[in-house]
Protein backbone atom coordinates (compact mmCIF):
# COMPACT_ATOMS: atom_id res chain seq x y z
CA UNK A 1 0.00 0.00 0.00
CA UNK A 2 1.30 3.47 -0.86
CA UNK A 3 1.94 6.07 1.84
CA UNK A 4 -0.98 8.16 0.60
CA UNK A 5 -3.32 5.16 0.69
CA UNK A 6 -2.20 4.30 4.23
CA UNK A 7 -2.92 7.91 5.29
CA UNK A 8 -6.34 7.78 3.63
CA UNK A 9 -7.34 4.50 5.34
CA UNK A 10 -7.56 5.72 8.99
CA UNK A 11 -9.24 9.00 7.88
CA UNK A 12 -11.88 7.01 5.99
CA UNK A 13 -12.46 4.80 9.03
CA UNK A 14 -12.82 7.83 11.31
CA UNK A 15 -15.34 9.44 8.95
CA UNK A 16 -17.26 6.15 8.57
CA UNK A 17 -17.23 5.61 12.34
CA UNK A 18 -18.49 9.14 12.98
CA UNK A 19 -21.24 8.68 10.38
CA UNK A 20 -22.22 5.32 11.93
CA UNK A 21 -22.35 6.92 15.41
CA UNK A 22 -24.48 9.86 14.19
CA UNK A 23 -26.90 7.67 12.24
CA UNK A 24 -27.07 5.08 15.02
CA UNK A 25 -27.92 7.79 17.55
CA UNK A 26 -30.52 9.16 15.12
CA UNK A 27 -32.18 5.73 14.92
CA UNK A 28 -32.06 5.30 18.71
CA UNK A 29 -33.65 8.71 19.28
CA UNK A 30 -36.26 8.30 16.53
CA UNK A 31 -37.32 4.79 17.58
CA UNK A 32 -37.12 4.96 21.39
CA UNK A 33 -36.34 8.36 22.97
CA UNK A 34 -38.68 10.56 20.94
CA UNK A 35 -41.74 8.25 21.13
CA UNK A 36 -41.10 7.82 24.89
CA UNK A 37 -41.21 11.62 25.31
CA UNK A 38 -44.74 11.67 23.88
CA UNK A 39 -46.25 8.30 24.80
CA UNK A 40 -44.59 7.82 28.18
CA UNK A 41 -42.05 5.29 29.43
CA UNK A 42 -42.15 2.04 27.40
CA UNK A 43 -41.35 -0.20 30.37
CA UNK A 44 -38.35 -1.84 31.99
CA UNK A 45 -37.84 -4.48 29.30
CA UNK A 46 -37.83 -1.92 26.51
CA UNK A 47 -35.41 0.38 28.34
CA UNK A 48 -33.10 -2.56 29.11
CA UNK A 49 -33.03 -3.54 25.42
CA UNK A 50 -32.55 0.10 24.37
CA UNK A 51 -29.60 0.38 26.79
CA UNK A 52 -28.18 -2.85 25.38
CA UNK A 53 -28.51 -1.38 21.86
CA UNK A 54 -26.70 1.78 23.01
CA UNK A 55 -23.91 -0.34 24.54
CA UNK A 56 -23.67 -2.46 21.37
CA UNK A 57 -23.26 0.71 19.29
CA UNK A 58 -20.51 2.11 21.56
CA UNK A 59 -18.58 -1.14 22.00
CA UNK A 60 -19.05 -2.05 18.35
CA UNK A 61 -17.58 1.25 17.16
CA UNK A 62 -14.69 1.07 19.66
CA UNK A 63 -13.79 -2.51 18.70
CA UNK A 64 -14.90 -2.18 15.04
CA UNK A 65 -17.02 -5.27 15.53
CA UNK A 66 -19.22 -6.01 12.52
CA UNK A 67 -21.37 -8.45 14.54
CA UNK A 68 -22.22 -5.80 17.16
CA UNK A 69 -22.76 -3.00 14.66
CA UNK A 70 -24.68 -4.85 11.96
CA UNK A 71 -26.59 -7.43 14.01
CA UNK A 72 -26.37 -6.46 17.71
CA UNK A 73 -27.34 -2.80 17.59
CA UNK A 74 -30.18 -3.06 15.03
CA UNK A 75 -31.52 -6.28 16.60
CA UNK A 76 -31.58 -4.85 20.14
CA UNK A 77 -33.13 -1.62 18.88
CA UNK A 78 -35.91 -3.42 17.00
CA UNK A 79 -36.55 -5.66 20.03
CA UNK A 80 -36.72 -2.57 22.29
CA UNK A 81 -39.27 -1.01 19.93
CA UNK A 82 -41.28 -4.23 19.81
CA UNK A 83 -41.35 -4.34 23.63
CA UNK A 84 -42.72 -0.78 23.75
CA UNK A 85 -46.37 -1.69 23.40
CA UNK A 86 -47.56 1.82 24.34
CA UNK A 87 -45.88 3.49 21.34
CA UNK A 88 -48.10 4.41 18.41
CA UNK A 89 -47.35 2.67 15.11
CA UNK A 90 -45.28 4.77 12.72
CA UNK A 91 -46.91 5.94 9.54
CA UNK A 92 -45.52 5.01 6.15
CA UNK A 93 -43.59 8.30 5.79
CA UNK A 94 -41.92 7.86 9.16
CA UNK A 95 -41.12 4.24 8.40
CA UNK A 96 -39.58 5.23 5.06
CA UNK A 97 -37.45 7.87 6.84
CA UNK A 98 -36.34 5.27 9.42
CA UNK A 99 -35.51 2.81 6.62
CA UNK A 100 -33.41 5.48 4.86
CA UNK A 101 -31.60 6.18 8.14
CA UNK A 102 -31.06 2.47 8.72
CA UNK A 103 -29.63 2.02 5.20
CA UNK A 104 -27.20 4.91 5.77
CA UNK A 105 -26.25 3.47 9.16
CA UNK A 106 -25.53 0.01 7.70
CA UNK A 107 -23.36 1.50 4.93
CA UNK A 108 -21.41 3.59 7.45
CA UNK A 109 -21.09 0.70 9.94
CA UNK A 110 -19.88 -1.65 7.17
CA UNK A 111 -17.30 0.92 6.05
CA UNK A 112 -16.08 1.50 9.61
CA UNK A 113 -15.53 -2.25 10.11
CA UNK A 114 -13.47 -2.52 6.93
CA UNK A 115 -10.10 -4.03 7.67
CA UNK A 116 -7.14 -3.83 5.35
CA UNK A 117 -5.76 -7.29 4.45
CA UNK A 118 -2.24 -8.13 5.71
CA UNK A 119 0.58 -6.59 3.72
CA UNK A 120 1.71 -8.88 0.86
CA UNK A 121 5.20 -10.39 0.84
CA UNK A 122 5.86 -9.03 -2.64
CA UNK A 123 3.93 -6.67 -4.85
CA UNK A 124 4.02 -5.25 -8.35
CA UNK A 125 1.91 -2.62 -10.03
CA UNK A 126 -0.74 -3.98 -12.39
CA UNK A 127 -2.39 -1.76 -14.95
CA UNK A 128 -6.06 -2.67 -14.59
CA UNK A 129 -7.99 -1.75 -17.70
CA UNK A 130 -10.30 1.24 -17.30
CA UNK A 131 -13.17 -0.77 -18.81
CA UNK A 132 -12.82 -3.39 -16.06
CA UNK A 133 -12.94 -0.76 -13.30
CA UNK A 134 -15.96 0.81 -15.00
CA UNK A 135 -17.65 -2.59 -15.10
CA UNK A 136 -16.98 -3.14 -11.39
CA UNK A 137 -18.45 0.27 -10.57
CA UNK A 138 -21.61 -0.62 -12.54
CA UNK A 139 -22.10 -3.73 -10.39
CA UNK A 140 -21.38 -1.78 -7.18
CA UNK A 141 -23.93 0.91 -8.14
CA UNK A 142 -26.53 -1.72 -9.09
CA UNK A 143 -26.09 -3.61 -5.80
CA UNK A 144 -26.24 -0.36 -3.80
CA UNK A 145 -29.47 0.68 -5.55
CA UNK A 146 -31.06 -2.74 -4.97
CA UNK A 147 -29.96 -2.87 -1.32
CA UNK A 148 -31.86 0.40 -0.85
CA UNK A 149 -34.89 -0.81 -2.84
CA UNK A 150 -35.32 -3.96 -0.72
CA UNK A 151 -36.15 -2.34 2.66
CA UNK A 152 -38.32 0.31 1.02
CA UNK A 153 -40.34 -2.32 -0.84
CA UNK A 154 -40.68 -4.51 2.26
CA UNK A 155 -41.73 -1.46 4.33
CA UNK A 156 -44.39 -0.64 1.73
CA UNK A 157 -45.58 -4.27 1.70
CA UNK A 158 -45.99 -4.17 5.48
CA UNK A 159 -47.29 -0.68 6.11
CA UNK A 160 -47.93 1.18 2.89
CA UNK A 161 -50.15 -1.29 1.05
CA UNK A 162 -53.72 -0.52 2.17
CA UNK A 163 -54.95 -3.93 1.03
CA UNK A 164 -52.54 -5.74 3.38
CA UNK A 165 -53.49 -3.60 6.38
CA UNK A 166 -57.20 -3.84 5.57
CA UNK A 167 -56.96 -7.62 5.40
CA UNK A 168 -55.06 -7.68 8.71
CA UNK A 169 -57.87 -5.57 10.27
CA UNK A 170 -60.49 -7.93 8.84
CA UNK A 171 -58.76 -11.01 10.25
CA UNK A 172 -57.52 -9.68 13.56
CA UNK A 173 -60.02 -6.90 14.38
CA UNK A 174 -58.64 -5.19 17.51
CA UNK A 175 -55.14 -6.69 17.13
CA UNK A 176 -54.42 -5.38 13.63
CA UNK A 177 -51.81 -2.83 14.76
CA UNK A 178 -49.70 -5.29 16.85
CA UNK A 179 -50.02 -7.76 13.98
CA UNK A 180 -48.75 -5.16 11.49
CA UNK A 181 -45.90 -4.33 13.92
CA UNK A 182 -44.97 -8.02 14.16
CA UNK A 183 -45.08 -8.24 10.35
CA UNK A 184 -42.74 -5.27 10.07
CA UNK A 185 -40.27 -6.97 12.46
CA UNK A 186 -40.31 -10.05 10.19
CA UNK A 187 -39.69 -7.79 7.18
CA UNK A 188 -36.73 -6.09 8.92
CA UNK A 189 -35.24 -9.47 9.93
CA UNK A 190 -35.64 -10.75 6.36
CA UNK A 191 -33.96 -7.64 4.96
CA UNK A 192 -30.97 -7.88 7.33
CA UNK A 193 -30.53 -11.57 6.45
CA UNK A 194 -30.74 -10.91 2.70
CA UNK A 195 -28.31 -7.99 2.97
CA UNK A 196 -25.76 -10.13 4.80
CA UNK A 197 -26.20 -13.07 2.39
CA UNK A 198 -26.65 -11.59 -1.06
CA UNK A 199 -25.12 -8.12 -0.93
CA UNK A 200 -22.38 -8.22 1.70
CA UNK A 201 -21.68 -11.83 0.64
CA UNK A 202 -20.84 -10.83 -2.96
CA UNK A 203 -18.60 -7.96 -1.87
CA UNK A 204 -16.81 -10.01 0.82
CA UNK A 205 -15.67 -12.52 -1.82
CA UNK A 206 -14.85 -9.82 -4.39
CA UNK A 207 -12.77 -7.79 -1.92
CA UNK A 208 -10.15 -10.56 -1.70
CA UNK A 209 -10.20 -11.42 -5.41
CA UNK A 210 -12.72 -14.29 -5.14
CA UNK A 211 -9.94 -16.85 -5.60
CA UNK A 212 -12.31 -19.83 -5.43
CA UNK A 213 -14.31 -18.56 -8.41
CA UNK A 214 -11.17 -17.54 -10.31
CA UNK A 215 -9.81 -21.11 -9.90
CA UNK A 216 -13.12 -22.59 -11.06
CA UNK A 217 -13.21 -20.35 -14.14
CA UNK A 218 -9.58 -21.16 -14.97
CA UNK A 219 -10.32 -24.89 -14.67
CA UNK A 220 -13.41 -24.55 -16.91
CA UNK A 221 -11.62 -22.80 -19.74
CA UNK A 222 -11.32 -24.90 -22.87
CA UNK A 223 -13.54 -27.84 -23.78
CA UNK A 224 -15.49 -27.74 -20.51
CA UNK A 225 -16.27 -24.05 -20.78
CA UNK A 226 -19.00 -24.38 -23.44
CA UNK A 227 -21.00 -26.95 -21.47
CA UNK A 228 -20.52 -24.93 -18.26
CA UNK A 229 -21.82 -21.77 -19.92
CA UNK A 230 -24.70 -23.64 -21.57
CA UNK A 231 -25.75 -25.07 -18.21
CA UNK A 232 -25.52 -21.63 -16.61
CA UNK A 233 -27.64 -20.01 -19.34
CA UNK A 234 -30.26 -22.79 -19.12
CA UNK A 235 -30.50 -22.56 -15.32
CA UNK A 236 -30.84 -18.79 -15.47
CA UNK A 237 -33.42 -18.94 -18.27
CA UNK A 238 -35.42 -21.45 -16.21
CA UNK A 239 -35.30 -19.15 -13.16
CA UNK A 240 -36.45 -16.15 -15.22
CA UNK A 241 -39.21 -18.21 -16.86
CA UNK A 242 -40.52 -19.25 -13.41
CA UNK A 243 -40.49 -15.59 -12.35
CA UNK A 244 -42.52 -14.67 -15.45
CA UNK A 245 -45.01 -17.52 -14.87
CA UNK A 246 -45.49 -16.50 -11.24
CA UNK A 247 -45.95 -12.83 -12.22
CA UNK A 248 -48.56 -13.81 -14.86
CA UNK A 249 -50.38 -16.02 -12.32
CA UNK A 250 -50.48 -13.18 -9.80
CA UNK A 251 -51.67 -10.71 -12.44
CA UNK A 252 -54.59 -12.99 -13.28
CA UNK A 253 -55.47 -13.82 -9.76
Amino acid at each position, binding site marked *: MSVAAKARAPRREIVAGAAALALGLHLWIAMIALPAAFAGSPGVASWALATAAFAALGVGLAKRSDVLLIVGFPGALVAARAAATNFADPGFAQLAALAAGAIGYLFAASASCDREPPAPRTSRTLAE*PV*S*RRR*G*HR*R*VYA*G*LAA*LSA*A*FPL*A*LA*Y*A*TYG*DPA*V*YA*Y*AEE*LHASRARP*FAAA*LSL*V*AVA*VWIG*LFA*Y*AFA*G*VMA*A*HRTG*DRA*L*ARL*LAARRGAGDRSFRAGLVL*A*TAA*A*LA*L*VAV*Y*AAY*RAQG
Partner: protein
Amino acid sequence: MRKVFYELLALALIGGSLAFFVHAVGYLSRRDYASAVLVSFIGLAVISVGKEMARLALAQKE
Protein backbone atom coordinates in the same frame (compact mmCIF):
# COMPACT_ATOMS: atom_id res chain seq x y z
CA MET B 1 -20.13 -8.21 -23.91
CA ARG B 2 -20.33 -11.34 -21.74
CA LYS B 3 -19.50 -9.23 -18.69
CA VAL B 4 -22.35 -6.78 -19.41
CA PHE B 5 -24.70 -9.74 -19.95
CA TYR B 6 -23.78 -11.19 -16.54
CA GLU B 7 -24.18 -7.76 -14.91
CA LEU B 8 -27.66 -7.24 -16.34
CA LEU B 9 -28.69 -10.78 -15.45
CA ALA B 10 -27.43 -10.42 -11.87
CA LEU B 11 -29.32 -7.18 -11.31
CA ALA B 12 -32.48 -8.57 -12.98
CA LEU B 13 -32.43 -11.71 -10.82
CA ILE B 14 -31.72 -9.91 -7.53
CA GLY B 15 -34.33 -7.27 -8.36
CA GLY B 16 -36.82 -9.95 -9.44
CA SER B 17 -36.39 -11.85 -6.17
CA LEU B 18 -37.67 -8.76 -4.36
CA ALA B 19 -41.15 -9.40 -5.80
CA PHE B 20 -41.23 -12.84 -4.18
CA PHE B 21 -40.33 -11.47 -0.76
CA VAL B 22 -42.95 -8.72 -1.05
CA HIS B 23 -45.58 -11.33 -1.96
CA ALA B 24 -44.45 -13.50 0.96
CA VAL B 25 -45.26 -10.60 3.31
CA GLY B 26 -48.68 -10.35 1.66
CA TYR B 27 -49.31 -14.07 2.24
CA LEU B 28 -48.26 -13.72 5.89
CA SER B 29 -50.80 -10.96 6.38
CA ARG B 30 -53.49 -13.37 5.08
CA ARG B 31 -52.23 -16.09 7.47
CA ASP B 32 -51.34 -18.24 4.44
CA TYR B 33 -48.10 -19.37 6.09
CA ALA B 34 -47.42 -22.29 3.75
CA SER B 35 -47.56 -20.03 0.67
CA ALA B 36 -45.39 -17.44 2.42
CA VAL B 37 -42.71 -20.04 3.19
CA LEU B 38 -42.84 -21.49 -0.35
CA VAL B 39 -42.63 -18.10 -2.03
CA SER B 40 -39.79 -17.11 0.32
CA PHE B 41 -37.84 -20.20 -0.75
CA ILE B 42 -38.37 -19.29 -4.41
CA GLY B 43 -37.16 -15.75 -3.67
CA LEU B 44 -34.12 -17.15 -1.87
CA ALA B 45 -33.31 -19.41 -4.83
CA VAL B 46 -33.62 -16.55 -7.32
CA ILE B 47 -31.49 -14.19 -5.23
CA SER B 48 -28.87 -16.94 -4.84
CA VAL B 49 -28.60 -17.27 -8.63
CA GLY B 50 -28.39 -13.47 -8.90
CA LYS B 51 -25.67 -13.38 -6.27
CA GLU B 52 -23.59 -15.97 -8.18
CA MET B 53 -24.13 -13.99 -11.43
CA ALA B 54 -22.86 -10.85 -9.66
CA ARG B 55 -19.76 -12.75 -8.51
CA LEU B 56 -19.25 -13.99 -12.07
CA ALA B 57 -19.65 -10.48 -13.50
CA LEU B 58 -17.06 -9.12 -11.05
CA ALA B 59 -14.66 -11.99 -11.80
CA GLN B 60 -14.85 -11.57 -15.61
CA LYS B 61 -11.79 -9.92 -17.04
CA GLU B 62 -13.48 -8.38 -20.10
